[in-house]
């Protein structure tokens, strides 16, 4: 078995302190936080503390914070929960496929739906203001790291996709619903954090008999572990941000000057997308894996449907030979230099054949 010496995939292993705490957390928070007995009261306290942690870091009210056991359900709740009789829906060409699926469904039900294009810099065209318009707005793109400008118009009904940005981008002032993925701050997978703004006309679109905002079956131990991971990530991010930015610059400069024939998207401090001409990404990702480096790719040969990344294609960026390098906390310059040396040799080898 190949041992991975350096992980540059979007997912990161759980923080060791979170792994250590998980056992104890499962032991303490098994009870139903909605019931009366002492163990339930303890569970409720832990839930409330976690909710406060998320609210503090997101800069929102804690009573608007809810938890989902299925992250992707949040796209459905966040968009369909805002629908009113006269609503229209806008989304962008670089949104996630879950949003494309919702757009397709709304379109088939007769709703007016528009797809917003993006420019070569990956910036989405701002929608025309309209109080009836629900807009799915990603704060940061998961494939390119490109952040979107703030939507200033308060008339729009904005569902914020913060699944990739996590804590990196602040919420726009006029958000109505928002979704985060616990994985964005190195927290456990399988947990979504869903928020509803105090002024939102939100109605839970899933059949329900009480006043619940979300189904409410998320795992309490995972919520607690995720809140802990969020605190740790936030602290470390402040300390490492500049270091990561320097490494990101090193990667993009090296790719352009030492490898060449490459489309580089270096829009943020911790995610770099490199597309190499004349390169088969599947072979490159496999060869890097054998050399001990795990990276992601948006190329067609790496996709289950064999289609190139709709994000790269919408931006006019080369889709072949794509590798995506995520810089996690703790990555060293030595690791980056080793990755770059490997990348240069493997690209040269493929191009020579």
């Amino acid at each position, binding site marked *: 078995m190949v041992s991975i010496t350096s992980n540059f995939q979007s997912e990161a292993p759980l923080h060791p302190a979170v792994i250590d705490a998980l056992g104890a957390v499962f032991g303490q928070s098994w009870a139903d936080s909605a019931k009366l007995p002492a163990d339930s009261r303890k569970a409720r306290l832990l839930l409330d503390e976690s909710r406060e942690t998320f609210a503090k870091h997101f800069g929102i009210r804690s009573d608007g914070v809810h938890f989902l056991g299925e992250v992707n359900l949040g796209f459905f709740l966040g968009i369909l929960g805002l629908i009113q009789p006269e609503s229209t829906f806008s989304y962008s060409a670089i949104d996630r496929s879950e949003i494309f699926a919702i757009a397709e469904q709304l379109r088939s039900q007769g709703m007016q739906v528009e797809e917003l294009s993006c420019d070569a810099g990956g910036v989405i065209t701002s929608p025309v203001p309209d109080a009836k318009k629900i807009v799915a707005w990603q704060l940061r793109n998961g494939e390119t790291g490109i952040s979107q400008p703030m939507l200033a118009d308060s008339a729009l009904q904005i569902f914020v996709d913060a699944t990739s940005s996590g804590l990196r981008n602040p919420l726009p002032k006029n958000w109505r619903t928002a979704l985060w993925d616990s994985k964005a701050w190195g927290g456990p997978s399988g947990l979504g954090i869903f928020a509803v703004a105090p002024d939102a006309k939100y109605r839970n679109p899933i059949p329900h008999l009480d006043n619940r905002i979300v189904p409410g079956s998320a795992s309490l131990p995972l919520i607690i572990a995720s809140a802990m991971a969020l605190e740790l990530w936030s602290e470390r991010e402040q300390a490492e941000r500049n270091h990561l930015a320097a490494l990101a610059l090193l990667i993009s400069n090296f790719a352009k000057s030492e490898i060449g024939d490459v489309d580089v998207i270096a829009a943020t401090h911790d995610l770099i997308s490199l597309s190499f*001409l*004349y390169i088969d990404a599947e072979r490159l990702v496999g060869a890097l894996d054998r050399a001990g480096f795990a990276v992601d790719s948006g190329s*067609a040969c790496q996709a289950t449907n064999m289609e190139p990344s709709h994000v790269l294609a919408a931006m006019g960026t080369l889709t*072949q030979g794509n590798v995506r390098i995520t810089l996690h906390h703790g990555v060293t310059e030595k690791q980056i230099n080793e990755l770059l040396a490997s990348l240069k040799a493997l690209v040269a080898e493929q191009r020579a054949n």
Partner: protein
Amino acid sequence: MEELDCLGLRCPIPVIKVAKHLKEKEVGYQISLLSDDPASAPDLAAWARMTGNNVEIKSATSFQITKLSD
């Protein structure tokens, strides 16, 4: 105009074949390419931008390429 048939070939092979074919040709040389790979349209456009050549999309599977630089 010569025709390069890349039907059934997946990325990055059509772009590699185009680049190899143009290598020894004069500036101004034109070729027609057939490719049904879904990555060909975005990737030929990106290739043209990156290498200083020109691609015209004729249909979903047909492209006209003009060599504009060595």
